[in-house]
Structure formats: C-alpha cells, structure tokens
C-alpha cells in the first residue's frame, strides 16, 4: 500500500489574477484574461490576444522581493510558490524534508531573446547577466534558494504536460520516502520565442480562444505559475488537506512530434492509468479540468479519448484555458490547484465562449460557474508536444 499524498495548499498567478483568490473571483465574474498584448514586446502585438499576468517586471519583482532583472519566469514562480507554501500553515520550511519540483518550458528565454539582439551582430555583445539564468533549471534554483528548499530540487520539461509531471514526480518522491513535502507545479512567462513558435504552427487564434467549441480555430497563449504543496500522510495531523492526489499516469502518444493521434491514444492511456491507480471507475469522476487548448487537433483527440473512456457517464468538464490562455509548462500546475480547490469547495469551473457543440462529440463543457457541488473525485488533463500525455486524479478523501 502506497503512502497517501495530500494537497495541503496551493498558489496561482495567471492572466486572471495575482493570487488564487483573484483567480477564483474571475471565474465567478466570467472575466477572462485575454487582452491585447501589454507587456511583451512583439511585432505581433495587435494580431494575437494573450493572457498576460497584468503587471510589469518591476511590479512582479517587488512582489517577489527579487531584483527586477530576474527572469519573469522565476518571478511568477516565486510569487505562486510562496502563496502555496503560506496557504498550508506549515510554518518554517527548514523544519521539514522538502522538495521543489518545478516545470517550465522557456526558462530564462525572456531575457535570452533580448540578449540575442546585441549578441548576434557581435559575439562580444549583450550583457551576460541576461543569459546567466537561461536554463530551465536555473529558474527553479532561483526560487528554491529564495524558499529555502535544499533536500530535493528538480525541473521537468515535457512541453505542455510539464506541470502535471511535476506533481507526479513529487508524489513519487514522497512515496519513495525521499522527502515528506514537495512544492510541485510549473511556471512559464510569455516570450517572443514561444509566441512566434506557435504562430509558425498556425495554431494561434486571432480571437479569444473557444475550447471544445465547433468554431474553435486555435489557442491563446498565457503565462503564469501554479503550485500545490504535496504532503505525506505522516504529516496529515499538521495540515488541513484540500484533497488527495489519488491517481496519476503518464503515457506517450508516439504519433507525431507536435500533433495528437486522431483517436487520442496517449490521452486515453493517461486518463485510464490515472483512474486505475486511484482504484476508480469513470463514473466516480465528478469533474474534468480539460487540457482543452482550443486547437482543432487537441480538442477532438481529447474529446474522442474521453468519449471512449467515459461514455455514457460524462462528468462535468471545462477548459479553464478559456480564461487563462495556454500557460504551457505552468498549465499543469495551475490547473492542479484549480482541481484541488474544486474538491475543497465543490466548484465546477466555466468554459468561456462555448456556443456550438462539436460534431464529433456527444457532450458539451460546463458554461457557468457553480459551487457547492458534491464532488468526490476530479481529473486534470495535460497533454503536450513530443506525445507527452499526463492525467491526474484528485480525491476528496
């Protein structure tokens, strides 16, 4: 019998709020985060709406108590990770065996792309300070050092499923008795690199995105960070758990470097594996936080896999990316916090801008915010480039 792993708290910063409470209020008010680009400098400023965190780097640096030259990826990470830790009431972090497992896909690219302007014409040009934290792992260490975490530190990067894999790995570190607590999740800031990359793939919507809608034409990029605090059963007496991480699975679609297989093989295997580990059947799931990017390809593959696994008992489901945009490496972390909070408060999150039923699917996402639902088990999906698919199951007890 594996050790139980509890969610003792969480923190989020995203395009819809600077902390979890603000995020929740945005869902209640149906206020989505996509706007015209304000903080990222790009020639595509007017072409693509994005869900930016509504603060410049100086403001974020003040909040994080870090130098303003710090990569935005690290600033977002520290703000959310501190909120997560504080919410647990566990107090002095140095009293515990704690790990920090953080996912990201861009690292310090926000600074590197500025550096390259001066560096390209002249190999001696550009300030080295801008690339010193280029590596994904360097961003994690800035935050781990600020939090005072030393027992275990790692960084995972599996594209859009990174954050979910951070939770899985964190839970396994606890079950293998390497640490007792793991702050797990992900962070990513918006960069020109990712914006232009997704643009070349022609999967960015020029309108606010419409996940799981027949008229969907792509995703909106977002940014942010989200962390849960995973706690071993042996510390249960010290926390008031929001939920338990009862199941998880990671599978590979092995179909294409960027596209999902038409029948969603990897998606199905991940969801099925997570249910199996939790010892649940599909009917037990009360809500699914969808990967739901809003691209043609993702939503149909994910939907078909859900249909195959859940028909005819479809739980409530929604893509919170319709509010936060696709925050890439952060999304699995942010959505895990939402999922754990959903169990704590019986929340079903709305899927914004859903109007037209997808013709391939027999179900539709929830469109209104509701609270007080009797939820016992919730699923969160994260699927990504490289075929990486992960699903998490959270349970109330």
């Amino acid at each position, binding site marked *: 019998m594996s050790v139980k792993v509890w969610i003792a708290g969480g923190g989020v910063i995203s395009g819809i709020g600077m902390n979890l409470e603000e995020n929740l209020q945005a869902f209640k008010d149906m206020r989505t985060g996509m706007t015209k680009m304000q903080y990222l400098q790009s*020639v595509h400023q007017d072409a693509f709406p994005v869900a930016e965190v509504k603060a410049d780097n100086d403001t974020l640096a003040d909040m994080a108590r870090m130098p303003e030259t710090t990569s935005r990826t690290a600033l977002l990470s520290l703000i959310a990770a501190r909120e997560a830790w504080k919410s647990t009431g566990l107090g002095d972090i140095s009293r515990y065996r704690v790990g920090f497992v953080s996912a990201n896909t861009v690292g310090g690219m926000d600074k590197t792309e500025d550096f390259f302007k001066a560096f390209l014409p002249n190999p001696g040009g550009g300030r080295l300070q801008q690339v010193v934290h280029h590596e994904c*792992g360097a961003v994690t260490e800035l935050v781990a050092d600020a939090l005072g975490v030393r027992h275990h530190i*790692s960084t995972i990067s599996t594209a859009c499923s990174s954050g979910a894999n951070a939770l899985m790995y964190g839970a396994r570190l606890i079950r*293998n008795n390497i640490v007792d607590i793991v702050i797990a999740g992900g962070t990513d800031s918006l960069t020109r690199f990712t914006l232009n990359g997704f*643009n070349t793939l022609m999967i960015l919507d020029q309108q606010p995105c419409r996940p799981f809608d027949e008229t969907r034409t792509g995703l909106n990029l977002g940014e942010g960070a989200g962390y849960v605090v995973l706690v071993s059963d042996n510390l249960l007496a010290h926390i008031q758990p929001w939920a338990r991480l009862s199941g998880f699975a990671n*599978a*590979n679609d092995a179909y*294409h470097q960027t596209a999902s297989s038409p029948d969603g093989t990897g998606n199905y295997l991940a969801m099925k594996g997570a249910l199996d580990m939790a010892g649940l059947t599909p009917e037990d799931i009360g809500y699914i936080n969808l990967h739901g990017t809003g691209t043609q390809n993702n939503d149909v593959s994910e939907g078909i896999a859900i249909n195959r696994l859940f028909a005819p008992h479809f739980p409530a489901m929604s893509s919170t990316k319709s509010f936060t945009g696709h925050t890439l490496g952060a999304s699995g972390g942010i959505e895990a916090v939402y999922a754990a909070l959903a169990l704590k408060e019986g929340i079903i999150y709305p899927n914004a801008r859903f109007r037209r039923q997808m013709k391939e699917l027999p179900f539709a996402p929830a469109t209104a915010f509701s609270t007080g639902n009797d939820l016992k088990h919730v699923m969160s999906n994260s699927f990504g480039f490289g075929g*990486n698919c992960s699903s998490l199951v959270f349970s109330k007890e």
Partner: protein
Amino acid sequence: MNIYINGTGCISPQETAQIGPLFSTLKEYDQVRLQAVDPDYKQWIDLKQIRRMSRVVKMGVGAANLSMEEAGIKMPDAIITGTAYGCLDDTGVFLNKMVSQEEQMLTPTAFIQSTHNTVGGQIALLLGCNAYNNTFVHRGFSFENSLLDATMILREGEAKTVLAGGLDEITHYSYQVLSRFGLYKKAPVKTMELLKSPDRGTIAGEGAAFFVLSPEKGTHTVAELAGVCTIYKPLWEGEVIGEIVKFLEAQDLTLEDIDLLVTGRNGDIAQDEIYEEVAAALFPDHPEACFKHLCGEYPTAMAFGAWMANRIIAEQDVPEAAMFYGQAPARIKNVLIYNHHQGTHHALILLKAC
C-alpha cells in the same frame, strides 16, 4: 531490489559507439571544444529523418538504440531523459531567425525540435512506445534525476525495463556564450595533459549515454546501479565528505570496499580542488580514474562517467587513458563515481559488479 544495468550505449567525442576494448582507439584532441564522433546513424534512423534531426536528437536516438541492442530489448517500459540544455541547436536557429528577421517569415521545424522533450519524444516515436516518458532539465542534476526516477519506477513495480539517459550538445552559440563566462581554457590543451594543467578553465564537451535498467539481470549484465545521490550547493567540502560517508553507509560499504574512485576532474584548478580534498580525506590510497579529459565538460557528463565505469567493470581493467592515480586492483567490484558541475551540483553514483 537490485537494479541491474542490462545495456549501455554512448556517443561521445571518443569512439564509444564502436565495439571493442574501452578507448582502444583513443581520440586525442588539442582543442578547447570537443565534438561527438558521429556513428553511422543510418542503422537506426532513415535518411530523410537524419537530415532533419539535430545532432543532440541523433546522439540520443543512437545511444538509446545501442543500449537496447546490448540489453536485447526492443521496447522499454519507460523512457526517461536528462538534458540540461535541451535542443540548443534548434533553439539557436529559431532564435537567430526570429531576431534577425524581426519575427517575420519563420518556419516551424526548428521551433518544433527546440523543446526539451524532443529527444524523449523522438525515441518514443521511433519505437512506437506509449509508455511513461519524462524529461528532466535540471542543470548538473538532469541525468541523476533521470536515474532516480528510473530507480523509483522499478521499485514501484510499474516497469520491468527502463531506458534512462543523459545528453547535451555544445553549439556555436552556446560555446561563444559559455566562453564569455570564463568556463573554458584560453588556449588549446592536449587531451592527456588537461588534468595536469595549472590554470583555470576546462574544455567544452558533449555526448549522450543511455542505460537499460531492470530488476532482472540480462545476458550482458556486469553491474548493478547500487545508488545515486545528489548534493545541492554544499556549504563546504566537509558537507560533501559527510554525504559520501553516509551514502556508502546506506549501501553497507566502508571506504575500503571501494575498489576504484572515478572523479569528474576537468582540468580547472579551482574546480578540481574539491576532488583533491575528498580524495585526501577519504580515499588517500585509492586508485582514481577520470573521464572529462575524454568527453569534455557539460552538465550531463556524469552519464559518460557512469557509462565508462560500467565498461571498466565489464573489462575488469582501467584503460591507461582513464587512469589518474594509482593502479587498478585485480578485482574491480565497487566503483564510486563522484562528480560536480560548476561547484554547485555534486553527485554520487555507485556501481557494483555482479
């Protein structure tokens, strides 16, 4: 549970993809940046794909295949990759075009292949492997974390064979930038003189090494992965020394049980100091072998070190090119590898002959 190394594969600046005694055709360099020797990738990848793949992806796919061939498996139950830098070449290509073309007329290929999980994803894709797939990107712990993850998965009983490895590439841009940080020697150094060089800086390297791990011994198995340990930003050398003692105690070993010490000396006098201190404190008379003069310095060079240690156990001999101090004993059973990257990321791996 014992975890056996059933197969290994390595692509590096040495002729490690060839069959034959370890370093029998030693590649000696007189330069500051070493590049991996390309094996014939056509044996694993079709020509059309080879042209599209960056070097780091090819190295990864090649080393993964070599390790599976040796282990005699066609399909692992998990693929776990460790890479500090990821796909630097494609990142550089996309970044260069994005900046110089002012975000216009870009094509997707380089971006698609720039994500850190490209290697793990490509291995899965080529094998048609739907199993667990993860990529660790934590600087000097990327490879160690992939081994730790592999160990945990095997202990959990979720997998019977795990493919785990570490790899990094050095590119034109990364070499230029890292040089500006003062990481490398100012003038070329001969391979066999690097570890005795009297000044700061090392040589840049790259490579990929993969391992097939399993709780069941295979036909070519010579060693067991007995332990992995990381030490993050130790406050002083005493902390490292203490961790080594604790690590060996956890394996029920004494210092005398270690037959060979393998260290990550890289020829930078400041960075090599701690190896001196550790050897002086714990292993004053132990034979010591080294590897970074052969593969160069990079965050996942430990994977090359572990690959070499496994081969040393297989051959029960330390090639002269790798020997740093003393003489290898007649029987090489327990090999302790101690490496650090940049003074901040220290790691231990223990291999036991079986």
